[in-house]
């Protein structure tokens, strides 16, 4: 790492990623880049995503070519100051050990865990230690993998738990009556079980609505709310999407619905569609999704809206939204109470945490650090 040479390596996104395929370079050799810029697009069996620059500098070398399938930890490119001579970069590439970091990562891969809460077996994944914990709550038909671009980064400062909500992922498929307050009660009971007295709640979509409900229902338990394209802030919702995703039985229809989640529909891979299809075919899932859909919708609109109660919300709140959101309109982020921080992203759809991963990670890390410092 002498002379400011920085390696750009194949990242590990989520528990199951062992390798990724280089799709294309987004930045030419010789370009000046900032930390967090997307330099190269990588496709995994879950998703297509941009690999972020680890630092500011000049992209000196594109080591990996489009089409190559490389293990996690492999060298993708080299960043360095323009003054670093070419042969020094050659030597760096020559000396790079491709599998050392990959093995390292494989060894301390965090393990998911299960806990019984009121007769329901709930799955969660914990990363990081210390600090006021944060809890990640995914959206409708999602699972804890929805945070694959965020979980590890956010866990650098604190312990971060990602939960498979009841009815989702590998958690019990019993969703009770399937309403937002019922789900919030289950999340609070899960926090009790893990002895999490207080936490920052970070929720996406349905998970956002649940986070908000937890904060209204049990104010002392919620240090702050980060709401990404949340439900619960207005009546409008893409009811056709909700019904479509529940009813779609074949890959093609399902893919069509899933593509509405992203500003760029090409982000939806075959594997992503397959994973949702496989999830939908688990025993109990069709019933759970049907109950949730019925609990979420009334006359094609959101059944549970907390907007008129926001002024009594004690927890500080950050709201992040994609302007291109085709599921819950970004307009719901307007005219919020003064103590809400709001940021909107122009070229972003409903999956804010995936589509704007680096910006979201920075913004949330900063927000949580400020809240923690208040004490």
């Amino acid at each position, binding site marked *: 790492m002498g002379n400011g040479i920085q390696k750009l390596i194949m990242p590990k996104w989520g*528990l*199951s990623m062992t390798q990724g395929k280089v799709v294309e370079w987004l930045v030419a050799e010789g370009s000046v880049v900032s930390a967090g810029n997307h330099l190269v697009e990588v496709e995994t069996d879950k998703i297509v995503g941009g690999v972020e620059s680890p630092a500011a500098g000049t992209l000196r070398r594109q080591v990996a070519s489009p089409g190559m399938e490389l293990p996690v930890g492999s060298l993708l490119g080299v960043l360095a100051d323009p003054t670093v001579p070419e042969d020094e970069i050659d030597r760096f590439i020559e000396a790079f050990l491709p599998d050392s970091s990959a093995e390292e990562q494989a060894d301390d891969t965090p*393990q*998911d865990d299960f806990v019984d809460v009121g007769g329901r077996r709930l799955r969660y994944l914990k990363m990081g230690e210390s600090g006021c914990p944060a809890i990640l709550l995914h959206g409708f038909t999602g699972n804890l993998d929805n945070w694959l671009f965020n979980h590890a980064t956010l866990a650098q400062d604190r312990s971060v738990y990602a939960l498979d909500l009841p009815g989702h992922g*590998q958690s019990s498929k019993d969703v009770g009556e399937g309403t937002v307050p019922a789900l919030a009660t289950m999340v609070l009971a899960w926090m009790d079980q893990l002895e999490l007295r207080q936490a920052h709640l970070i929720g996406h979509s349905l998970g956002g609505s649940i986070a908000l409900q937890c904060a209204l229902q049990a104010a002392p338990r919620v240090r702050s709310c980060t709401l990404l394209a949340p439900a619960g802030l207005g009546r409008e919702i893409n009811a056709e999407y909700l019904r479509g995703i529940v009813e779609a*039985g*074949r890959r093609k229809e399902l893919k069509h619905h899933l593509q509405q989640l992203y500003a760029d529909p090409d982000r939806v891979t*075959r594997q992503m569609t397959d994973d949702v299809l*496989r999830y939908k*075919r*688990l*025993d109990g899932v069709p019933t759970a999704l049907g109950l949730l859909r019925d609990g979420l919708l009334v006359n094609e609109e959101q059944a549970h809206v907390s907007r008129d109660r926001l002024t009594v919300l004690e927890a500080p709140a950050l709201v992040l939204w994609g302007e291109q959101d085709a599921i819950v309109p970004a307009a719901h982020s307007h005219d919020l109470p003064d103590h809400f921080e709001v940021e909107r992203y122009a070229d972003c759809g409903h999956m804010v945490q995936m589509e704007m991963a680096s910006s979201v990670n920075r913004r949330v890390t900063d927000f949580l650090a400020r809240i923690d410092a208040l004490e």
Partner: protein
Amino acid sequence: MARTLSFQQAINEALDQEMSRDESVIVMGEDVVGGQGADGEMDAWGGVLGVTKGLYGKHGDRVMDTPISESAFIGAAIGAASSGSRPVVELMFNDFLGVCFDQIFNQAAKFRYMFGGKAKTPVVIRTMIGSGFRAAAQHSQSLYSLFTHIPGLKCVVPATPYDAKGLLIEAIRDDDPVIFFEHKKLYPLEGEVPQELYTIPFGEAEVVREGGDTTIVTLAEMVHESLQAAEALAADGVECEVIDLRTTSPLDRETILESVEATGRVVVVDEANPRCSMATDIAALIAQEAFGALKAPIQMVTAPHTPVPFADNLEDLYKPNASKIAAAVRSVVEYQAWETASRS
């Protein structure tokens, strides 16, 4: 995280979980309990290749050893199915199904139809198929096309552990007779399988690899040979779409035709003998429904019209493999219509 099971364990788990979930599910067949009627732990063996191992210990008398009298116990299973049970009956090798054709073809397959929809026959017949096991002509055939021919039967031919579990659970819950063909060479194959119960609907083929140059339609062990061929061809710039049928009855016509309409070229790969086979059936479907899309004649890679040989070298020659599949794909990709036209 993601849990892996072998194909064999996936079948065992499907049986175990369905027996736990539904009291009416019973398992019967030759040696499915312990085998040989010997002293000692009854479920030590669990079928000729150990697929039902451990079920007797958990589910007791709902797992039944039968005499070596196929016509009797297949008939008994069909009778039990028509009177309230959901039997999963194992008939070791599909080569022996011949002695119970009446029970299967004329009874089980006809009950719903002949009783005006008032009867159901939720029986699953599990049976092994496949060559390459050095098991000679009477233990190596792949006879799914015989059963696909009969209306009233459903035929399942899984290729992966995930599909084996999901399709077997679907088969057990289905109210019609299902013949479930297990390729014995696939038993040790490992793959991701959820712990939870799940089903895969019948009549849904799986596109296991996407590609725009040629469609390969195949099933069972040949899915893996085809994928290997596709991998080799991709290195030469030829992209194959590989379709795993998963069930031959019902057949997912839509997925086959959609793919052929996009690629214009097709190779059907079937380990079974070539006459009146899945290969000819699919070739006919494509010729009839997608003729205008074809850029080359339909190719078939199958076994020859002979019994499965016992001699190792002959059995190896008999069986389709990745290199034969790759050669067939090259022939359809390189095919030039005008050459043929100018020669004639």
